[in-house]
């Protein structure tokens, strides 16, 4: 656990070695990062929201970012997806420097990075099935798409029943499932999830996190933003604490769960 003075924010105690909470430790100790964010600055208009933010996701990891409202969690994910332009620093995904190469958002998806955005943002007047088709927009392997469709229906059986219904008529929890399922249809290597538990009943939150871990077992790396810090840290290999656009703490999920500052500020203890 690193004590974090904002100026020394990039120090990390356990860099890069995922310690799977799941136990089936096939830890890729030698792996290079799947995602590397270095000294990222991004914001809106004249205001910078992120200040020299650095983080990494190694292959096979679930990484959580926790932080208060307005800390910049959503902005971080949007910058990684290319929706909010990076003003400085670099974002390297699978060895490709997205910032230097100026890769537009729709190309980033093709590299294997899918994003289930904050507030779900499903297409309200497309059917559930059409929403899922859009998730597979970058692909043209019909057999693979059909197999993945079957897979997401197995993960979220309710979506199979609701296939022909407009996405906008689903309940909040169902929409969240659809948003995750839709992102999965891109068959991503890295899945960005922005507040997957927001506004959901506790059993559904548990279900969503079960699915996240199941996906992770199947080889999908996850970078996840959460208000529900306890749930996120319990399920993540590593976590970062984001405060007003700066990483102030980082460590394994367990370390952060037991850190007194995290307990006081984010776990309500």
């Amino acid at each position: 656990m690193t004590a974090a003075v904002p100026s020394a924010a990039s120090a990390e105690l356990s860099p890069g070695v995922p310690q799977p909470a799941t136990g089936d430790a096939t830890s890729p100790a030698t792996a290079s990062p799947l995602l590397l964010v270095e000294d990222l600055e991004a914001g809106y208009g004249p205001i910078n929201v992120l200040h020299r933010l650095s983080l990494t996701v190694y292959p096979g990891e679930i990484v959580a970012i926790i932080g208060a409202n307005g800390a910049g969690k959503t902005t971080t994910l949007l910058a990684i997806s290319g929706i909010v332009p990076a003003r400085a620093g670099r974002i390297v995904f699978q060895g490709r420097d997205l910032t230097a190469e100026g890769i537009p958002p729709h190309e980033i998806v093709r590299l294997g990075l899918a994003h289930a955005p904050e507030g779900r943002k499903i297409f309200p007047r497309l059917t559930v099935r059409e929403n899922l088709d859009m998730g597979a927009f970058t692909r043209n392997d019909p057999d693979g798409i059909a197999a993945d469709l079957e897979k997401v229906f197995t993960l979220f059986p309710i979506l199979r029943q609701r296939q022909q219904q407009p996405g906008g008529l689903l309940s909040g929890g169902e929409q969240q499932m659809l948003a995750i399922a839709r992102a999965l249809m891109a068959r991503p290597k890295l899945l960005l999830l922005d507040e997957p538990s927001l506004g959901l009943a506790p059993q559904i939150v548990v279900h969503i996190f079960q699915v996240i871990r199941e996906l992770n077992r199947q080889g999908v790396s996850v970078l996840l933003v959460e208000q529900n810090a306890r749930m996120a840290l319990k399920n993540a290999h590593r976590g970062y604490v984001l405060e007003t656009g700066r990483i102030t703490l980082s460590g394994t999920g367990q370390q952060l769960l037991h850190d007194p500052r995290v307990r006081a500020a984010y776990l309500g203890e």
Partner: protein
Amino acid sequence: MEGWLAPTELAGGFLQFLILGLVIGSLYALIALGYTMVYGIIELINFAHGDLFMLGAFFALGLAIWPMGVTTAEAPLPALVATVALMLLLTPLFCAIVNVSVDRVVYRPLRNSPKLTVIVSAIGVSFIFMNIGLLWRGATPVKFPDLISDANLLEGTGLRFTWKDLMVVAVTVPTMIALTLFVRYTRLGKAMRATAQNPVAAQLMGINVNRVIAVTFAIGGALAGVASVIYGLYIKAVDYQMGFQNGLYAFTAAVLGGVGNIPGAVLGGLTIGVVGELAKAYLGAKWSEAVIFGILIVVLLFRPTGLLGARTREKV
């Protein structure tokens, strides 16, 4: 649009005006689709759309005269068919290219600007088009070749439905059906709807939003091109201001049906066509506009989003 028919001579009465209204209305519907599709995807009221329609008519006029010099319905049938086919092929292509170019050069650089900026630019493009039209064919109306027979297909029934009327229906109906199928079932059509509903999410799906917008302008332009050919052949006269009135009617049709809504544009176009013709017949020509806009106001009072518009515009 008056004068080529003397309704009082006809026995069909109401039914006759209905037929005429549907024919005129399907023309408005074609133009309205271009407004509605562009609005649906970038929330731009494309004021230049009517003038694009006018440029299309001028282009089609050139096609009639230039390649084979076919200018009357008495020309040999193969020449007539070839001329009309050429118009229906090349004019939509011309309008599509012009519309996509305008998007690329004018609207795309303004994608993140305030809406008012874009709308004012569209008004500017409208004036530019109109002036191009003025330079191209002058200020006085130009005769459009009368290539399609006025022979009545319903001779003896008391109703009048000419080859010209049939031409309008035979072109507009399949065009609208094709468009509906395209938007509903193709990959690109779904991407268009997704982009219209949430452009950011569409990008996150890997959709190239600028390309989808360009395709939308291409389709909208092509539909205006089809409409312009039909208009020329039907009305037999074109002038540089024809885009204004017809554009206004078509835009009204789009709003009436629910702007952004494709079936809405068709319904709105047909409604305005029929209402306009009925008002003309029973109240006199000077009343038709008052009735059309009166109905528009009443509909919007009770259904602010138009006849088929989504009740609430979700901003998800």
